[in-house]
């Protein structure tokens, strides 16, 4: 190959890379994409095998990139930019880009809502200082579901103005298994850790969209078990938008311990103790997973009891939130799931509950590409139609770097 051809090829590769990065930066930040559905079902025993984060989510390791192509997708190359460019071993770059179309009916007199919007655009970076230490950061642009200018241009323009970093932390992790520690902003390990923030077990436990906290966390990951302990605090009250957050302003402790059996099942106990000015929550729960290889079905469950106290109002209440789902993997590159969710905001008062029924189809036609079709039906009240109903159909187109 002549030097001019080589230069031209390099320029083309750089151009493609720049184009993809530009597209990504036009959308919105969301969540470090985590797929707990792939634990056991893909032959992977623990989340930290595929992700640099010891609790999963976010930037993929080289093993995770290989798995994303060879096991999870129907084909392709899972490497960064499909293998067009390689990064030095100390540098990891990745990202998630999602565009969503939704149809939402909540019984509003305005009728069914239709929307198309950039949902997520996060770029992940990891710089290894040496074999043990690394700096990790996520930066993205917030997606906006309902901007004042409802046109596609208005949606992209509205999203483009708000850059934020949901995760940034320093990590000590000398090996894939063993002890680790990290300090900075991320979600404290807890629960099933779905990518879908609308699920009740995320929304009502302190893990809704942009509720990442500042933490000092440590843990130990072994092949068949892991424990994580985290002290957390909310972002500063008057923080700049880059690092601001949402949700109850609680500080406290989160603990999660998981035991895995025969590479096909896991049971975890967890707690989260959050103390705020207006309210405090003491949460305890169980997480379970069971992979039935013959049927190619993964069962996932989580149930949490929450004791919430309101200091000024001198009142306390108990809550319950749960998820029960099953995912079926009929062929490589296809995942179909159903789930039932329950949240009761006060166990002492009837008709304060809500139920959700979900059906989801994920198709991974090629490495880096995913289409997600989600149907969700919600009932408020005691489960009967004495409250409202809501139905949602959403199509997501997802590309990861």
């Amino acid at each position, binding site marked *: 190959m002549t030097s001019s051809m080589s230069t031209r090829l390099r320029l083309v590769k750089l151009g493609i890379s720049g184009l993809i990065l530009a597209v990504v930066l036009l959308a919105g930040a969301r969540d470090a994409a985590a797929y707990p559905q792939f634990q056991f079902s893909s032959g992977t025993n623990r989340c930290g095998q595929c992700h640099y984060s010891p609790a999963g989510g976010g930037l993929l390791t080289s093993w995770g990139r290989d798995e994303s192509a060879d096991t999870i997708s129907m084909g392709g190359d899972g490497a960064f930019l499909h293998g067009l460019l390689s990064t030095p071993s100390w540098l990891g770059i990745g990202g998630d880009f999602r565009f969503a179309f939704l149809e939402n009916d909540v019984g509003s*007199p305005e009728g069914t809502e239709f929307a198309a919007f950039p949902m997520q655009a996060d770029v992940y970076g990891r710089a290894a200082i040496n074999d043990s230490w690394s700096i990790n950061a996520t930066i993205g642009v917030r997606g906006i579901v309902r901007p004042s200018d409802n046109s596609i241009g208005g949606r992209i323009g509205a999203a483009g103005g708000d850059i934020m970093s949901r995760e940034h932390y320093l990590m000590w992790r000398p090996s894939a298994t063993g002890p680790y520690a990290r300090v900075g902003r991320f979600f404290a390990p807890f629960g099933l850790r779905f990518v879908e923030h609308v699920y009740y077990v995320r929304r009502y436990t302190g893990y809704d969209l942009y509720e990442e906290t500042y933490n000092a966390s440590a843990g130990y990951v072994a092949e068949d078990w892991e424990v994580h302990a985290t002290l957390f605090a909310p972002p500063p009250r008057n923080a700049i938008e880059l690092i601001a957050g*949402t949700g109850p302003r609680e500080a406290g402790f989160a603990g999660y311990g998981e035991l895995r059996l025969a590479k096909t099942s896991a*049971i975890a106990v967890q707690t989260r103790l959050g103390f705020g000015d207006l*309210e405090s929550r003491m949460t305890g729960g169980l997480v379970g997973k069971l992979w039935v290889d013959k049927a190619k079905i993964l069962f996932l*469950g989580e149930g949490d009891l929450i004791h919430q106290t309101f200091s000024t*109002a001198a009142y306390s209440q108990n809550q319950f939130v749960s998820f029960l789902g099953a995912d079926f993997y009929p062929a490589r590159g296809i995942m179909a799931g159903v789930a039932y969710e329950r949240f*009761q905001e006060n166990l002492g008062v009837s*008709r304060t509950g809500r*139920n959700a029924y979900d059906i989801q189809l994920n198709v991974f036609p090629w490495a880096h590409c995913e289409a997600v079709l989600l149907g969700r039906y919600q009932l408020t009240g005691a489960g009967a139609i004495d409250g*409202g109903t809501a139905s949602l159909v959403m199509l997501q187109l997802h590309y990861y770097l």
Partner: protein
Amino acid sequence: MRPGNSLTWILRAVGVLAALAPLALSAGCGSDTDDRPAQFSFIYPAIIEPSCATASCHSNYTREAGVNFGLSSGEAYFQLVARHFVIPSDANDSELIYLLKADGAPRMPPDFALPEVDIDLISTWIANGAMNN
């Protein structure tokens, strides 16, 4: 069966039970009497903050319609009253109730209706003078 296998299966059964536990509690429970305080110091952190101050709606980030319920309880109260979403002692004419019931107004929250008992509690707070108590 070897002891190790027994332990494995017992733990797997516990895992399955943990996964199935939500079904056992799915029917709902509780009394028909609502003993919750109709005070803003309860209503804000228990209902308004988790339902309305979410990332895509009235949060520090998004401020839909210029409304931000994510700053503090006091600021949320000020916005509800000063912008006339709430008319103290007059729940029937308070826009907030129309929005929550989707009664001639767009449904709030836009992703699902609040339970009727929550709307009733907010109505009671307004009827009692909508104090910042």
